[in-house]
């Protein structure tokens, strides 16, 4: 590094290279966050009016509320469950595509098939669970016809189970893509070398494939966890209003014009997410893995 010696022309070129990103990030990311941050310190008159100033009252309120902890626990529960299922499904789908489909064209075709559900909107995809999981839905009808159950299972729809199913359905692709990407870069010769050394299929997965897919797993985890933590819509629809999440709480706050508390909650959630993501990044050096 010799930044002190960089000629001005190179400096200008460097700024030009980053300018598109800066032009997008500053107005659409940095500015809104600053607005929310400022709002979280403002006082409110209780009718939506904001008084500029500096008070920690909103934070005190959020942190003192027993509801906050409950909501975080509920959201973390959904995140962990969704993470486990998307990881298992995503890892094995990627593994299958990379190591078992010999024909590359077929592998790409199957990979594209994984994205087909995304050709419709999130809402349609959620609604489409209703005829399947509902009280009169296909699964209940089938189970009753088989004589496995007498009463339709209520737990299938409008429950935590339904929320997790919807999340997994929605987010598995976010696991598949990065894991597929890092697995596809594993040299097939390494697998052969492991076989040559006498490794079993399980040894190869445990000692070669999993460690070498770590960056993909970490990226997928970041996607899935941050999306679930930041979501309120799926919880609301699929739980039938029975469950709530962190975001749904401050969505309610916004609804009743409690902007500073909503903003304080948002800032808190951002901090929690930043902590989680940096924890993940600490365990896996993604940058190093990607440039490998």
């Amino acid at each position, binding site marked *: 590094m010799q930044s002190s010696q960089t000629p001005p022309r190179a400096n200008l070129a460097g700024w030009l290279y980053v300018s598109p990103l800066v032009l997008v990030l500053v107005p659409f990311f940095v500015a809104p966050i600053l607005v929310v941050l400022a709002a979280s310190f403002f006082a409110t008159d209780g009718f939506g009016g904001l008084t500029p100033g500096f008070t920690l009252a909103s934070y005190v309120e959020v942190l003192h509320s027993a509801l906050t902890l409950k909501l975080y626990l509920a959201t973390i529960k959904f995140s962990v469950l969704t993470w486990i299922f998307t990881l298992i499904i995503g890892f094995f789908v990627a593994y299958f595509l990379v190591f078992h489909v010999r024909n590359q064209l077929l592998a790409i075709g199957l990979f594209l098939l994984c994205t087909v559900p995304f050709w419709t909107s999130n809402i349609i995809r959620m609604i489409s669970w209703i005829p399947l999981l509902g009280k009169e839905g296909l699964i209940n009808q089938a189970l009753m016809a088989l004589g496995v159950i007498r009463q339709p299972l209520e737990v299938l729809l409008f429950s935590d189970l339904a929320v997790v199913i919807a999340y997994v359905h929605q987010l598995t692709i976010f696991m598949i893509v990065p894991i597929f990407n890092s697995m596809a870069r594993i040299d097939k010769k390494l697998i052969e*070398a492991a076989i*040559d*050394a*006498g490794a079993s299929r399980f040894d190869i997965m445990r000692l070669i494939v999993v460690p070498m897919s770590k960056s993909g797993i970490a990226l997928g985890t970041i996607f899935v966890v941050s999306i679930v933590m930041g979501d309120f819509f799926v919880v609301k629809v699929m739980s039938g209003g029975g469950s709530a999440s962190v975001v749904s709480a401050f969505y309610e706050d916004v609804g009743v014009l409690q902007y500073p508390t909503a903003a304080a909650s948002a800032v808190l959630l951002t901090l929690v997410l930043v902590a989680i993501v940096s924890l993940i990044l600490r365990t896996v050096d993604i940058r190093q893995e990607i440039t490998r």
Partner: protein
Amino acid sequence: MKSDRGDIELAGVCKSFDGVTNVVDGVNLKIADGAYCCFIGPSGCGKTTILRMIAGHEDPSAGEIVIGGQNVVGLAPVQRRTAMMFQSYALFPHLSVRENIAFALRVRGLSKADRLRAADVMIEKVRLTQFADRLPAQLSGGQQQRVALARAAITEPRVLLLDEPLSALDEQLRVQMRQELRRMQQELGITFIHVTHTQLEAIALADLVVVMEQGKIKQAGAARDVYAHPHDRYVAEFMGGQNVLSGRVEKVNGSCFTLAQAASSGIEVPLQTRPSVSVGDQVDIAVRRDDVALVRPGRELPPGCTTSLPSRVLAIEYQGYFVKVMLDTVPDDAFVAYVPEKTFFADPFTVGDVVMATWATGSALPLA
């Protein structure tokens, strides 16, 4: 295990990937226990496929592969007690040198202390002790190659298979690692099978050189046999160091026959390996480049030389201990003389000079 011997026999081995063309086509070969064997040929000649079939990474479509008296077709590499060193090494990038080398012991269920101790002994053997904790990416090409060798050798295989082990290295390192391979082979006392496309590498290393073309063995023998006594035009041209001439047999008398050549008095060739030559046959002969002497026209030929072909000097390359003189002796083929440096500079030629190319009659070799 039945046997510790590492002698290999290939019997009628064929391999086809598409069911139509044979990449390896009926190969028969015996390799002695503890031999250093080099397969050599252009890319796509099937040499790597043979190696992979011996290693157990590919199954032959037909034929038998016998190692130490046991047919190993269908067995896993571990059961064959072979180990392979891959082209560009295939070291595990996320494992340290020590862990890479200990990998095979790890999957065999050895305790951590045991396998690391064994790995350290092997690391010592390949002189990498100070690099034991590094990752492969932090090593030079030559060091990576030694890790790969150690990783393959740690299971005490009876056969070690090397797929173009030196191709990723630069010239100087290649010569150095070549010696190291030979040293390791002698130290381990096991059979090495080495695939290469470099002639020098093959003849420098191997007890047994196997020249291949299009899935078939063209010639197999000791390095000196293959280099000095090629069977046919292909081997002669591939191994290099030979001038190949062809012509029609003009007359056969006793121990010699004469080959007709355009614009010359004919070439006299001894009848050694080729007993049945009759007048009118089209025959190829080989003359070693370092057997060719160049004489100025009108001068007396050296003793024992009966053939002399008038030629023009096309180019001259100084090679250090010899000078490479390219001639237009034969119309379509290259004809080259390797003249010892001192001889050349006693009376140097220049490009365009007319010279007589000649050689001792006994050194011309009829080809199949």
